[in-house]
């Protein structure tokens, strides 16, 4: 049985309020047998320093990515990951994480590739929960393994590949959510982040620069529906019927924007290009725009 929806008024103004919960809602539903709470972080140890009571860890490297091919887990891998955590096809999943929910949004997106029906994001993520002084624990979460079914991964609807991006140039909007320095080609990686090995800097021709952070408040929560419409609609000219592709460096920050466009603003067809700049900036002969001029 899916859990009730959060009727918070801020959430109600979004296109798909069912995809988000507030910290209040989560606090009052912890322990519900149909709820599975998942923490998905950038720092692989952070969960172990303390997590929301009952939460289970999903690591993007180890649990969501294939360990050989640069791809996501296959249906067997996904089913095994879910089964080990007691997740059933009917579970209501709430995901939260560090760093503005980047990896939480990424995990939600991967669950969506496998068509998991009821998966929601905790607005504000780990930071907001902690800042509000809510319960955290280092107690291990007990689970009873389930038997999650094998379901195909749908790579066509919300996922874009390099060829899709090539075909998009001149035909539909591309949204580059990286920092201005990465977009211009001045930087080959995020400011203060590791070099992820791109040979070339710049952006995909025609891509708009809309850094992911513009959608977030400083406490980690999403901006209001009106604020988001002003940015992506009025300012950037994106429309709900557009076929949009988002990208960043390896697909985590663009999952955040994918979530904003799809679930908060109700765009029907947004795809996340998970290959992102680490693929594009290394691919031979793909077109690149580079406004930055090296000194």
């Amino acid at each position: 049985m899916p859990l009730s929806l959060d009727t918070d008024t801020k959430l109600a103004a979004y296109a798909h309020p069912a995809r988000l919960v507030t910290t209040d809602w989560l606090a009052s539903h912890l322990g519900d047998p149909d709820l599975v709470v998942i923490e998905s972080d950038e720092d692989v140890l952070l969960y172990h320093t303390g997590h929301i009571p009952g939460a289970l860890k999903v690591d993007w490297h180890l649990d969501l990515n294939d360990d050989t091919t640069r791809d996501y887990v296959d249906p067997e891998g996904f089913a095994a990951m879910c089964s080990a955590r007691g997740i059933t096809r009917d579970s209501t999943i709430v995901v939260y994480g560090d760093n503005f929910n980047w990896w939480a949004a990424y995990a939600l997106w991967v669950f969506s590739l496998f068509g998991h029906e009821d998966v929601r994001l905790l607005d504000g993520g780990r930071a907001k929960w902690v800042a509000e002084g809510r319960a955290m624990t280092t107690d291990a979460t007990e689970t009873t393994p389930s038997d999650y079914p094998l379901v195909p991964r749908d790579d066509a609807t919300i996922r874009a590949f390099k060829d899709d991006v090539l075909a998009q140039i001149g035909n539909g909007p591309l949204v580059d959510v990286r920092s201005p320095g990465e977009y211009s080609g001045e930087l080959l990686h995020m400011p203060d982040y590791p070099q992820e090995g791109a040979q070339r800097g710049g952006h995909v021709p025609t891509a708009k620069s809309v850094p992911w952070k513009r959608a977030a408040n400083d406490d980690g929560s999403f901006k209001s529906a009106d604020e988001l419409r002003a940015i992506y609609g009025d300012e950037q000219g994106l429309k709900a019927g557009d076929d949009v592709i988002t990208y960043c460096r390896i697909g985590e920050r663009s999952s955040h924007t994918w979530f904003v466009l799809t679930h908060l603003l109700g765009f029907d067809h947004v795809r996340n290009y998970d290959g992102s700049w680490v693929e594009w900036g290394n691919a031979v002969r793909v077109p690149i725009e580079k406004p930055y001029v090296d000194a």
Partner: protein
Amino acid sequence: MNGALPPKLQGIVDEFVEVDRTERLDLLLEYSRDLPDLPERLQGVELERVHECQTPLFVQTEVEGDTVHLFFAAPDEAPTSKGFAGIVHAGLDGCTIDEILATPSDFAAGMGLAGVISPLRMRSVGAIMARVKRQLVERAMA
């Protein structure tokens, strides 16, 4: 002279190898908790940042006679980076310059951590070692 690890560091590597996968994470967490805070005299001082770590980590070396002291700063929200720094600190603080320069920067490859935290994240250790060694070499040449 590359190859052998200083005894304390070898002991830590052995400690990781001897436990199972889950315990390795717990052990890394212990090292993150055991990393000493920066001494007061270094607080507020601009330290060298290890950019290859996904979360902020800063490193400073000091040499007293022939003995090297290592100092690290990382936020509590970055336990993995702190854990790596804690291992390097516990294994190499108090060693000589030559011992540290002779320590293979990829020593952590033999700790059995790649499978529990992913190989990509293991790069941080090499990055820390590279900064430590470079600071020592630069000081020797100054």
